[in-house]
């Protein structure tokens, strides 16, 4: 298990290096530079700016320079936010995005699994049909439609909750619901399908035939086996939450890192784009790793398989 974990961490570092390299290359393919204005700057000022931000070497030199700095944990200065380091900007923004993401994750997992269990336990009941309809909307609606709907009803109409900004736990409710809608709907569909499939398994019939109480069958056999399959979805779910936050943070004016991304690309703020991308990449890699380890720990079949090797 330890060897497996170390191998996966190393693979993650390589993935991050590839992501950094590709993003670096893609950014430099874009026409225009960070200091292009409507009116072009005098050449000597341009030269000074380029020297100040180490943009005057060849691309390969700049790339080597960036990697060397990255290895020391230095993400470089931002071109647009003068006087601020990328690391500095991210230190303020990342915790906000993480809080929002964690709230949405908890909501999506808890809500999706309980809705899916409720629907799967009584097929074709009213609950089942409502969950089916709700999850269809949740899976297909874009987050800005859900966000706008929530703001209209709860923010502007009923005035129960703040419709924007980030100044306390109440402010997280609407953005977290918006961000969680898609993964919650998907988790509900997945859980329902699993519950229905597990209920038809031989071991469930055997347990019932042996006279095991229905509640115990549900808890010990159906729930456990259904959840194992749903867990594989947690990794992709975290990735959806991370990329989804680009739009949700914009809708609710949440000061997370999502809002920097698009503007940083259009400003050609190379270090900021790279910094945000690397943080996203690292979070996705870590999330997938955590899910795989958790899965190996929970499912004895996988655990046994690993020790045999």
């Amino acid at each position, binding site marked *: 298990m330890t060897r497996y974990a170390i191998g996966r961490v190393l693979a993650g570092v390589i*993935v991050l290096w*590839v*992501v950094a390299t*590709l*993003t670096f290359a*893609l*950014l430099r*393919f*874009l*026409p*225009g530079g960070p200091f292009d204005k409507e009116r072009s700057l005098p050449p000597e000022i341009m030269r000074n700016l380029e020297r100040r931000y180490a943009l005057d070497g060849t691309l390969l030199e700049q790339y080597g320079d960036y990697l060397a700095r990255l290895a020391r944990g230095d993400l470089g200065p931002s071109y647009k936010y003068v006087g601020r380091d990328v690391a500095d900007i991210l230190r303020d923004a990342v915790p906000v995005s993480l809080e929002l993401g964690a709230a949405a994750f908890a909501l999506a997992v808890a809500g999706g699994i309980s809705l899916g269990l409720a629907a799967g336990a009584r097929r074709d009941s009213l609950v089942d049909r409502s969950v089916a309809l709700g999850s*269809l*909307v949740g*899976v*297909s*609606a*874009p*987050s*800005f*439609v859900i966000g*706008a*709907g929530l*703001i*209209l009803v709860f923010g*502007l109409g009923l005035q129960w909750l703040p419709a924007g900004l980030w100044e306390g736990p109440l402010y997280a409710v609407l953005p977290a619901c918006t961000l969680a809608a898609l993964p919650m709907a998907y988790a509900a569909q997945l859980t329902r399908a699993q519950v229905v499939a597990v209920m038809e398994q031989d071991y469930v019939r055997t347990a019932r035939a042996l006279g095991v109480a229905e509640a115990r069958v549900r808890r010990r056999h159906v729930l456990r086996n259904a959840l194992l399959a749903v867990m594989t979805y947690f990794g992709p779910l975290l*990735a959806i939450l*991370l*990329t989804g936050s*680009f*739009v949700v943070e*914009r*809708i609710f004016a949440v000061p997370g890192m999502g809002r920097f*991304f*698009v503007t940083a*690309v*259009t400003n050609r703020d190379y270090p900021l*784009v790279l910094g945000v*991308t690397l943080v*996203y*990449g690292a979070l*996705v890699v870590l999330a997938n790793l955590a899910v795989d380890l958790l899965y190996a720990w929970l499912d004895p079949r996988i655990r046994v398989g690993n020790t045999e090797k």
Partner: protein
Amino acid sequence: MTARGWVGAALVASLVLLALAGDRVGGYRFDAQDQAHALEGPSRAHWLGCDALGRDLLARLCEGGRISLVVAVGATALAVAFGLAYGALAGWVGGRLDALLMRAVDVIYALPDVLVTVLLIEALSAALAGLPDLWRRLAALSLALGFAGFVGVARLVRALVLQAREETWVEAARATGAHPARILVRHVLPNVAAPILVSAAFRIPAAILAESTLSFIGLGIQPPFSSWGTLASDGFEAMRSYPHLILFPCVAILCSLLGFHLLGEVLRERLDPRRRA
């Protein structure tokens, strides 16, 4: 067909008709300004109201729907065509080429797709600078979204082709001396077409969603043209005072996505032999 299927078919059919009609529906041009009615809610003259410049919202929605559908269909066609060629090549030839092609796909998968799409749109918009603005935006969006979608199609096609390669009927075709390329095109691909069609059907709503989201954050279609995403974005700014401006674009997007999802489900049920039995 189930009731869900009919609802989906009805939604998609009406949207396609509206998009084909474009701004001929309500009798107003999509860019005609009527300052006297600016920001007015729905009325008899303007069924869905007007925007801040007094432009008829119904006309703009129909015109925007046309643009959204063109991008969605274009992106899906590109994703499927490219993914089909790529995946079939990797799966059919196998060996080193397969390993190389699939590693490339893995790398694209590791990048956040928002990043790839945003960078591609920027690069393509600049590369296509010679085209008129609307065409340039349409092409850049379709290509970027098509690229974002091709990876999934390529993986699916490769897996299907790898599976089919070992079938006895492929062996039989080989034994008759058919050219490998002919076996691939005439025997293998038609046999694995069903799941590919289903995934293509679900790519259309995914592309509508991606396009509207990109337009919503300002990277898509530019004024005076609009897609549903830009209309929603404009409406979002003014939603406190003029909720009709955000309501109708969102309803249009939601209806189209639900419609395409329901139709995709019908296709999946029909084409999956296990479900049919």
